[in-house]
């Protein structure tokens, strides 16, 4: 149960929020002018990084506003939250993810 800081309301329990996938996807400004591959990429192509992920959340049971979250998918650490339109803050999670590599146990095969 993550704690997420809504940029408007402050830190709240994850159960107040809903998840809306990858952030900063640009809708082609003139869809008629892009080819199928470009439109297909907009519709379907999503990053699935092991590491930092910029994603959209909505404070569904709060102010109902969309915002962005910079989360490390390896350990669910949230580095920052910011409003739509703001540029993502520059953080360095490191290749080995700093202090915490998210491995539960030594030798855990999963």
């Amino acid at each position, binding site marked *: *149960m*993550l*704690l997420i800081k809504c940029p408007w309301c402050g830190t709240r*329990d*994850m159960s107040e929020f809903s998840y*809306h996938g990858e952030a900063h996807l640009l*809708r*082609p400004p*003139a*869809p*008629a002018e*892009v080819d*199928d591959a470009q*439109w*297909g990429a*907009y*519709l379907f192509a999503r990053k699935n990084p092991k590491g930092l992920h910029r994603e*959209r959340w*909505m404070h569904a049971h709060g102010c*109902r*506003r*969309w915002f962005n979250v910079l989360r490390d998918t390896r*350990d*669910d*650490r949230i580095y920052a939250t910011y409003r*739509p*339109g703001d540029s993502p803050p520059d953080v360095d999670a490191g290749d080995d993810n*700093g*202090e*915490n*590599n*998210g*491995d*539960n*146990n*030594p*030798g*855990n*095969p*999963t």
Partner: protein
Amino acid sequence: MNSIHRQVNRLAAGGRLNRAKVIRFWYDDRQYEGHPGDTLASALLANGVRIIGRSFKYHRPRGLFAAGPEEPNALVQLENGPHTEPNRRATEVELYEGLIAHSQNCWPSAAFDVGGVAARLSRLLPAGFYYKTFMWPPRMWRAYEKFIRHAAGLGRAPAEPDPDHYDKRHAHCDVLVVGGGAAGLQAACAAAAAGARVILADERAEFGGALLERGDGDDGDGDGDGDCDSDDGDGDKAAQWLGARLAELRRAAEVTLLPRTTVTGYYDCNFLVACERVTGHLGPSRGDRAPRERLWKIRAARVVLATGSIERPLVFADNDRPGVMLAGALRAYINRFGVLPGKRVVALTNNDSAYLAALDARRAGAAVEVVDVRRHPSGALPERARARCIPIHTNCTVSAVECARGWSRGRGVASVQVMALSDDGREVRGAARKVECDVVAVSGGWTPTVHLFSQAKGALAWREDLHAFVPGRPALANPCLCAGACNGAATLAECLEQGRAAGVDAAAAAGFTVDDSADSAGATAAIDNASAQLNIDEPRHAAMRALWILPCEHAIGRGPKKHFHDLQNDVTVADIELAAREGFEVSEHLKRYTTTGMGTDQGKTSNLNALAALSESRGLPVAALGVTTYRPPYTPLSFGAVAGQQRRDLFLQKRVTPMQPWHVKRGAVFENVGDWMRPYYFPGKDESMRAAVQRECLAARNAVGVLDASTLGKIDIVGADAVKLLDMVYTNAWGNLAVGSCRYGLMLNEHGMVFDDGVTTRIGEQHFHMTTTTGGAARVLNWLEEWLQTEWPDARVYCTSVTEQWAVASLSGPQSRALLSELCAPEQPLDAESFPFMSFRELTVAGIPARVFRVSFTGELAFEINVPARFGLALWNALFAAGEPYGLCPYGTEAMHVLRAEKGFIIVGQDTDGTVTPFDLGMDWMVSKKKTDFAGKRSFSRADTARAGRKQLVGLLTEDPALVLPEGAQVVAELRKPPLKMLGHVSSSYFSPTLGRSIALALVADGFQRKGEKLNVAFMDGGGHQARVTAPVFFDPSGERARG
């Protein structure tokens, strides 16, 4: 009549019992006695009950093995009827008057079990037997399965609803301390002294942890004078210390003490779940108004884990016989419960801690011998044992266990065979010596209880000196500190120091530091003083011998004797070796293949020994193998606690309309639509559903019907850019819609697929009233907001959900105008010219200000009357007060479905499934050709969306007009032996009273081109029926009636 059994194993004195009071209880239909302070386990032991159950796979008799949550054997069925609970560990059940328990997994009783024959078939049940032995021939699996499931049952679930109630509570604290032993108490006191809000939770009834189990063995005098009767042992000092700590915590203002509370899960960001047994320990339904259990959801700034450790068994030949138990458990039974489970004790050990048990048993009056696998055990504890004339067999093991014969003695251990070990400890040699005994107390060292730390994604570290995993680096997201035995502390002094430090550090991290003021300095001094009070003079334990799997005369798995490392799931060392030979050599695979550690005890006593056996087989150190993932819950949670109050009416919120009381009074049958309860139909006396629906449909077609449409999603859209928003989310154009007019809209996602529809009305130049499907209201509002917030943050539009602000009565039928005009003033003309189809007027209906929309979902002349919700019932009553001369009839959602299907109007989600475009629905006319962009438009030209052969909405008319096709049935070209090529499916199907025959809508590949074709609809029973493809509009195709 059964006589009451005597407590033959109860010591004359000692233990934390109230001996003045006698509790009577029933076990396997015999009556026994115990005392307050007993667990079911200690009371059974006191009464000499040795066999508590049969093992899971081989049905071998089993006895008590432990004294805490790690107990693998003693699972009982507690209570009867609705109160019954399977798989309760006898070691965790507090005794109460009238308790009823039964043994499990045995018939007719634990002592005499017919299934014991499985023990003789053990060759058929090797590792992975689920996957092997009983798989062939495949057709026989059903027969095997029945036998296996019956034989392997672990208790039975209650068949009646739970009469007790349960509760939940959210809590926030600065420091949560898990575990109320010496370290945990010390941590809680230190954190409280710093002013932090503290919650201290412990799974047992009493705080104190291992302090409650200390006895003479801990007596620090070390003089070996046989000071056996001393009442001034460490047990008393511990009790005094404990009392002082608890008094301190009770005085503190911000400390919550939670005994009988198991922290079962440690989730992200220091969110922990704990289950408090509030009244369950008193017996069934004795809680009065208090809940039986309460589930705590705790968010803590810092967590201190002081969860202790669990003793690790040694694995030797036939080590599962009743009477074999953990050495620490023996101490607990002697010192905490005043029970000596046997008269002759053999302690088998690879370390010093079993000597404590040996000394305690000796003091309690047992004859004791120690079998130590170490060559030269030395140090204070072995010396103390020697001083008390306890024989010590060094460099030896127990190589065989003999059981007593006959039922009366319960077939427990009667003697063991002791043999010397070879140098490497892998074989026995020399002559065997027989030692008579009825208890074998085993110790293979202590395993830190790292479950919660590991659940919290903390990294584990291997401690070579302890031969165990200990907490390493905690996860960043879950700041916690570990203290005491769970952190590898070996002595009480270390536990106290670690506890104090963890408490201070946790409080400081949460923002509470002990400053130099006199108060806090005094508090710190008090803590230090407290440690001194305990007067610890505990001998440091000598090193253990790294040997857990002990040999017998035959190679392990090559003879009659079995070496069980997992008692609950009946897994042996031979199973591990077999699995490793077969390639299941990673611990996670091994676990699943052999089922080791997969019982309700989750391998608390077995996991490390399984790894030790795997390590032997693979020739790798345990540290390199790694443990399997620890997952919540630490011990099982009851369904009641998880559900809490959220059951029956409180399980899911019910939404009802303002007209609900009328519907109930009228005897409506309801259906759930999303969270809404909507009238499904209104049956008359003895009227069938079909008859009622037919009657309601005909009324709406021939006279006037009224539908409670209050549940329709309604969104108020205001702003200069409102048209821009509508143009983007709907397929058609909105700029040219006149104020006062209504328009139907289709909403697509970016894939070009229909996801909602509804009528939107222009109330003012910059003001629109949008309606959505009942179930889609929230989804549509989110969709609009997403566009506004993430694509057009500068747009001047505001969307507000007004679903619950308006109550809606939808009048439908040729008499609807006449009825409505009765309720409106004459200056409010309703004729087709003044108030045309697809327009809206603000009227006063029955004295109530109303928005009336001339829209129709039935194809009839219709008026949708919207009034502020508080007037909904008044409007409804007024309609019925005036409606009788017109034949006004209420209709429900089923009639609404029939009426709209006769007109070929779709229901999103029924006739569409997220893969349907407006073109697939034949609604090309709804799609603007002029707009350059709207949501989904670009996807129309994607190859898959534009291809031929897509499924299209058509009507189906059956050969037999009386036959109503099943919804969801597949449409096929011809009926023959499967596999059949599927052309599509029936999406809506009803009997139409208007047409006097059945009708259906279907999505069929190339449906538009197939009009007139005869296709087949396949049924589940293998049959089918022929139907003709038609247009989807069955009634009034020109739409005259609605415009009238």
